[in-house]
């Protein structure tokens, strides 16, 4: 662990799951001292380094460091707190998965906002890509020695990133598209559902669920 015990973090974001869930889960799993701020928006836009959220503020020894860009913040926290492998190839495999997931979010918004004859094309592209993502998750899991973790036998950046990804699509994005949760759930395999639920039960993540619901109730016996 590369963070001093007197280091505190502030995560600035909207009061939604959105693009910050991975950051929240990492800070929780790390048992870091952290709080969340929900800046008035757009009043506070100009006060952010890139006029966007999330922003991570790190304070230690009287110094303050500010980082933005959700995936950069995730990779930074994952490295500081030991959730990212130090081996470059192993790290690249985990980062690749997170980047692919981010592509899915872009594809979701592309099909949501598409009009005319682009709409069915974008919907098709999204569905194809999502199926591929589930397959990729399954492929990584099948090569893992553990069925509760994607890489190795400890909670890793990839596990946290996967959990945040499915939570985004199953719990959050319905505020944009009411049927997306059902569409996504229908694509999941029992092995992936089991993985999601196993990650959720990680003791390191327990404090997270004092503030929000688990996904366990969302999957019924029919899904297994």
């Amino acid at each position, binding site marked *: 662990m590369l963070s001093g015990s007197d280091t505190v973090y502030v995560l600035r974001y909207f009061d939604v799951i959105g693009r910050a869930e991975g950051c929240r889960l990492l800070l929780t799993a790390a048992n870091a001292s952290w709080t969340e701020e929900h800046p008035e928006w757009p009043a506070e836009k100009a006060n952010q380094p890139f006029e966007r959220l999330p922003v991570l503020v790190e304070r230690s020894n009287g110094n303050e460091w500010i*980082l933005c860009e959700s995936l*950069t913040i995730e990779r*930074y926290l994952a490295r500081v707190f030991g959730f990212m492998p130090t081996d470059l190839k192993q790290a*690249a495999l985990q980062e690749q998965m997170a980047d*692919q997931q981010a592509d899915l979010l*872009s594809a979701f918004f592309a099909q949501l906002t598409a009009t*005319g004859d682009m709409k069915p094309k974008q919907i098709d592209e999204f569905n194809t890509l999502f199926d591929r993502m589930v397959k990729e998750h399954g492929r990584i899991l099948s090569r893992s020695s553990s069925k509760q973790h994607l890489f190795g036998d400890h909670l890793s950046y990839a596990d946290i990133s996967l959990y945040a990804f499915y939570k985004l699509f199953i719990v959050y994005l319905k505020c944009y598209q009411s049927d997306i949760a059902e569409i996504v759930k229908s694509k999941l395999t029992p092995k992936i559902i089991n993985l999601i639920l196993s990650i959720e039960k990680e003791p390191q993540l327990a404090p997270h669920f004092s503030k929000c619901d688990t996904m366990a109730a969302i999957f019924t016996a029919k899904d297994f």
Partner: protein
Amino acid sequence: MATSKDPQYILRYFDRIGVAEGSKLLLSAANVEWIEEHPEWPQEKPNQPFGRMPVLIEKHVDDTDFVICESGNIERYLARAYGFIPSDIRQAAFQEQLRDQASDMFAAFISQLVAKSEEDRRENFAKFDGLLDKLVEVQTKQINANGNNGHLFGDKLSYADIVTYAFYKIIVVGMVKRQANIVDIVRPKLTPQLIKLITAVEANPLLSSYMTRSDSLAAVVTKPTSARL
């Protein structure tokens, strides 16, 4: 079986200046043996790990290849492997942040490019324009904080220098056929500090072989505007 004459890396992408440009620059600057492959598309789509490009194949002498995809991921892997990203985690994050910000700007550029209705195009262009202004501001601030020596950090060619250069090149050189006015939109916004960085990247000896095969971005951004002729 791979021999010492075989390439160490294969980069698969389209034959154009696009999101693989940063990877091309890094492979060149790393001075490794590498080649480009331009698979038939979309025929070769199912044969890629995620149905997309770019893809990086690292060849090993025992024939176990290491294959990764996702342009940003490929860049970060190469940059770390060949010393262009600092080992200090925080310094690395500052550099990665700049790449992600440039990538956000590029995504906004694409949004306004592909917008169908005039209303969408205007709205998306305003977003792109605002993001570009902000990006130039944060990049210029960092260049100034670093002493305006042609680098964003330190005094050697870094990952941040390369990806900053790459994203401007994608838009101003790579995309000009799809949006002719983009040069006149971007060029006036580039500060002298950014032009100095772009020029310094192209002049860096580590990129001399890259520059023999690639158009100059510096030539485009230092050209006088038509209004001044």
